[in-house]
């Protein structure tokens, strides 16, 4: 909360105006965005608690597919925090926890692969001068550890269960995101072809949640042997 908070400078409009605004904010996400400019914040103060609660519910439903709405939610937060700190504190906390930036999942996974499989150490090392046998021995270790990571935190299955090399037919309307085509691709499906790679699908993701205050950028802490 900065000292030069522009909120203080605005005179509040009447009750019904605010009610109307609140209802419009519910219905119109773009209006919500515009309304969240600092000089329009204070008038909504008294109605914020109810408004915010409802916005939280929307967030839960629409979190993944439409990222823009999520961003709007983020901006909604700030006035709530500033104006009605006490009444909405709990609600705000929940929102903040779900707002972790998407790269955190990637950093968490990298951290686990390093911890259990020395994955980052292996890839960061310059292997050009080593013999195949040495690289191979280390690769076995990394394989063992990282394989356990995949087994623990994911359930992976092939996209296509046919044997690689088998003939199959892609019908019209096949899932283009799940199947990538190469070779003699002309006209419209049905297309006959051979399965070159079965693909991988994550059936389940079991990455545990980490509290928001954990610094995800520490992929692996430095180790100090205390003697």
């Amino acid at each position: 909360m900065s000292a030069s908070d522009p909120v203080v400078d605005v005179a509040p409009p009447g009750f019904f105006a605010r009610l109307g605004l609140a209802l419009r904010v519910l219905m119109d996400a773009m209006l919500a965005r515009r309304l969240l400019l600092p000089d329009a914040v204070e008038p909504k103060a008294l109605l914020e608690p109810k408004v915010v609660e409802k916005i939280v519910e929307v967030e839960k439903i629409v979190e993944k597919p439409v990222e823009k709405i999520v961003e709007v939610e983020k901006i909604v937060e700030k006035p709530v925090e500033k104006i009605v700190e006490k009444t909405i504190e709990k609600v705000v906390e929940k929102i903040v926890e779900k707002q972790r930036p998407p790269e955190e999942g990637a950093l968490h996974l990298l951290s686990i692969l390093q911890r259990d499989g020395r994955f980052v150490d292996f890839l960061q090392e310059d292997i050009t001068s080593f013999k195949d046998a040495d690289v191979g021995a280390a690769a076995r270790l990394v394989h063992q550890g990282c394989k356990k990571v995949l087994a623990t935190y994911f359930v992976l299955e092939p996209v296509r269960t046919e044997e690689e090399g088998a003939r199959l037919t892609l019908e019209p309307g096949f899932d283009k995101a799940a199947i990538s085509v190469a070779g003699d691709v002309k006209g419209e499906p049905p297309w006959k072809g051979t399965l070159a790679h079965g693909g991988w699908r994550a059936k389940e993701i079991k990455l545990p949640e980490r509290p928001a205050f954990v610094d995800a950028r520490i992929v692996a802490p430095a180790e100090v042997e205390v003697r």
Partner: protein
Amino acid sequence: MATATFAIGIDLGTTNTALGAVRLDDDKATPKVFDLPQVTAAHETMTRPLLPSFLYQPASSELPDGALALPWDKARAFAVGAFARDRAAAVPGRVIASAKSWLSHAGVDRRAPILPFGASADDDVPKLSPVDVQARILAHLREAWDAAHPEAPLAAQQVVLTVPASFDAVARSLTEEAAQKAGLPQLVLLEEPQAALYAWIATHGDGSPTPWRKQVKPGDQILVVDIGGGTTDFSLIAVADDGAGNLSLERRAVGDHILLGGDNMDLALAYGVRQRLADDGREIDDWQLRALTHSCRAAKEAMLEDPTLQESTVVIPGRGSKLIGGSIKSTLTRAQLEQVVVEGFFPVVDKDARPAQNKRAGLQTLGLPYAHDAGITRHLAAFLKGQAPTAILYNGGVTRSALLRERIKTIVASWCATPPVELQGADLDLAVAAGAAAYARVRGANKGLRIKGGTARAYYVGIEKSELAVPGIAPRTDAVCIAPKGMEEGAEAVIPTELGLVVGEPATFRFFSSTTREGDVAGAAFDVARAGDAVVEVAPIETTLPGEPGLLVPVTLRSRVTEIGTLELFAQETASGRQHKLEFQIRGDDG
């Protein structure tokens, strides 16, 4: 107190703990293992079927805040489970392992805060007693269960807790004490080999394609071989006819608690590789030895699983970020594996072989009494003493290897007229928990098959014979049987001889047990000095009679086996009939 809805089996193992549960009202259901939430890394909690029996107490500045938080306790400052086990390698001075093995170690005060063992008094690591550590592990189970079943708290369920068959009355009593401390006031103790057998029976139920009643017949003897990470236990269970044409099971014999297991094998292999590296001029430090032990375990398992594999690479990765550049490579050949693991731990011996005796040196080293002889088959021969089992049931992680199971079976077969059959058991890590839950249900409903057996040992009180005093010669001490072997729960026994106890000061008796002596009834007496290895001294028992100091009160000594499965001892005044409990004095040699 709510009524119980679940039958619960808890396998409080030396290396891993598991909890099995089954609904009491569902006869058809098989016990399922309850996945236990535990801290697996800083700020990370996952559920796993096994909870490693390790307790980690970090220094206050060691980990970031909230690193050991659990869903039901965000401020927790210690950890039980996978993270504790992983940190044991990095900070060995702050992690307590194998607390269970200390419960049966008579040479220390098991209620005193002595763990982590070897930590000096001014270390900042909080010290705990072995009983406390077991209580913490059980408390973690209770909290995890209660969080998932708020309407059916663990304290109100039918709980069965397993103990090694080799645990004597003191160790069992201390286990019960730990459970009370953990908030589990009502429970029953069950021997682990019996639990494994209950699991086998549940897997081969009457409706299954291979019902157990068709696999054994009266007169059969089932040998249960349980080889875990750190311990080996044997039991012999006989199959009989109960007189009405139904099969009944009776536990006939238990072995000693042998501190020998898979971890010893991995360490033996690692030492061998370390020696070969040292011969080449490469020394390795403690961290590298631990990494080497892990690598040897992986190589051992790979070669035991695939008989065609002739060698396996063993790598000690570089400690720093130079994974390959800093690494040391070696190989483990099949010949080395055979020599160290197969020949070293499972030598071909005949049925008269006996393990090398633990030398009773004047100065005993402190610490756990690890087995001096690593030959598990020699310990097995000593246990069987010529008896011929008809079937073998395996339990414990080491027996996962088909090669080792076959090896043990072949050696035992060489001691018998007819080779024993291997019973197909359930999951080797989870059988004890599932079997204990099956037993809890059977017991709770008071129907179904129960393995008979009563106490695994006979117990004796040491009474000095009053003889003419001869200078320089200690008076003879008789071991008088106070609890015959095989006493069932609820049974009582009494030593008919009257003794005089002095009032107002502690009266202490030496206390002995035997797993091998047969046929001693209550009151049977013999010279302790002549009994040899058959009789083992347990902690002394003592009581203080209240009243006018100096008076001599006539008492008789009696014993009772409780519902829980522990042994209670009393001195009963002949005149008034009042009973005074004899407590186990486990304070150690200075008490």
